[in-house]
């Protein structure tokens, strides 16, 4: 992991829904001037191996980078057709892809997260600056 990157974890049991992960990521980005570059399924190394979501952030300059921090949109999908449609709707709204962090790709920009006991697949884009 690069020096300017930080990984934080959110426990799956604390996440009631995907919106909770979205607002938590937005909060972290805005407070810390860091952008999301990776989201992974995770498990805590503990006796009960709690399910979690590991999010890696990278430092950015909020004033000159052009990254609209705190404006992430996460939308769940069930199959590839639905994912395609969601992505194309984001593109139509001039939102930008977020993943993979080193080269965001509008054809993917998807991740998975443990939300409570379920694995949720979702598309992640960053809303256009107002």
């Amino acid at each position, binding site marked *: 992991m690069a020096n300017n990157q930080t*990984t*934080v*974890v*959110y*426990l799956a049991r*604390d*996440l009631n829904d995907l*919106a*909770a*992960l*979205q*607002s*938590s990521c*937005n*909060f*972290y980005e*805005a*407070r*810390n*001037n860091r952008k999301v570059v990776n989201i*992974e*399924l*995770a*498990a*805590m*190394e503990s006796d009960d191996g709690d399910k*979690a979501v*590991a999010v890696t952030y990278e430092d950015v300059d*909020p*004033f000159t980078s052009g990254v609209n*921090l*705190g*404006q992430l949109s996460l939308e769940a999908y069930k*199959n*590839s*057709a*639905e*994912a*395609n*449609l969601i*992505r*194309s*709707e984001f*593109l*139509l709204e*001039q939102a930008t892809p977020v*993943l*993979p962090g080193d080269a965001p790709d509008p*054809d*993917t920009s*998807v*991740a*998975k997260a443990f939300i409570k006991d379920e*694995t949720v*697949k979702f598309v992640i884009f960053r809303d256009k600056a107002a």
Partner: protein
Amino acid sequence: MKTFCFILMLSIAVFTTGCPRTTPVKPAVVAKVAEYELNQLDTNLAAYDCAIFGKTVEITESTRGKGQQNRTITCANDQPDFDKAKRIRDATIHRLIRTIDHVYFQFENELYIKRTSGSFLSDVTDIGANFAATITNGERAKTIINAAIIGFRGGRKSGSIHFFQEKTAEALISSMQSARNRVLADMIERLRKEDVEKYSLDEALGDTIKYFYAGTLPRALQELQQNASKIAADTKEQVRVVKGLTPEKVVTAAQAKPAVDALEALKKLFNDATKGTPDSVKTDARAKAEKILEQINDDKTLVDEINKDEKLKGILAKLNDKAQTDSAEKLIRGINELKTTASHEALLKGPSLEKIDKLIVDAVQKK
């Protein structure tokens, strides 16, 4: 009995698939809105050419699909007018998009109905034939019906594979829509940002053709195939084992809002202070940044907490030193540094950070 079964099957099929309306009654105005006649397009193209060339010109029409045919346009203006050309280009393309949308949505509706009612009819036929085979006396008749069922299922399967590659109507429609959205997103972006020298009407017309074909079945199937494998590769079920990290607090949208608003407010101040804005806006931005600092200094509890940490104390001291914050940019960056440093290293408690967020938002929103 066989006649009864046949009539029953037919009735079910007709009453469940034939009668219901699939769209609301179309208002006449919808047809009018979608109407864009060839002669209107020709008029727009001629006006565009006048705006681009600005004088009497002879144009070979072959590029616009009419075969080799020369045409002379006499223009009222004698100077090129690219702003006017852009307006004509945008209007022409938006009218074409409207027309294509109208045709597409009719096609989408028909596709959905045909695909779902076709499947339903096939199911009814399949079940009915099975039922007939069960109740029919005589081995020969049973054999014939069973052979017919096998043939019917084979034909149905083959049709589904060859024409639709076994995709549901929903998958096909959403794929067409996503392909269309992609082309449209590119077009709108270019129409918005680029002038006619970079994105000519002819190029835009080419894109409207792409837009039309994006809403077709072959494109839908291609879209599905292209992305399914990519997504599968990108969302492998790998679980990372995490050690030595304390779980981060999960927040609601309402709890996240003040922090997000504060960052937006600081960005606005920064842009006002540094971008090509009038001097009065720059002065106002500087005054608002000073107000934020003044209010932080006025809050004794907050200052006490900041001063407990040497790093934060140093940042606040630098902010209060006018020699080091001689520009609005430095002042705004300093306030942001105070906030992010406190958050990165958990040097301030949540309520204190929220207080700073609120001070920023209030100061920026104040007229």
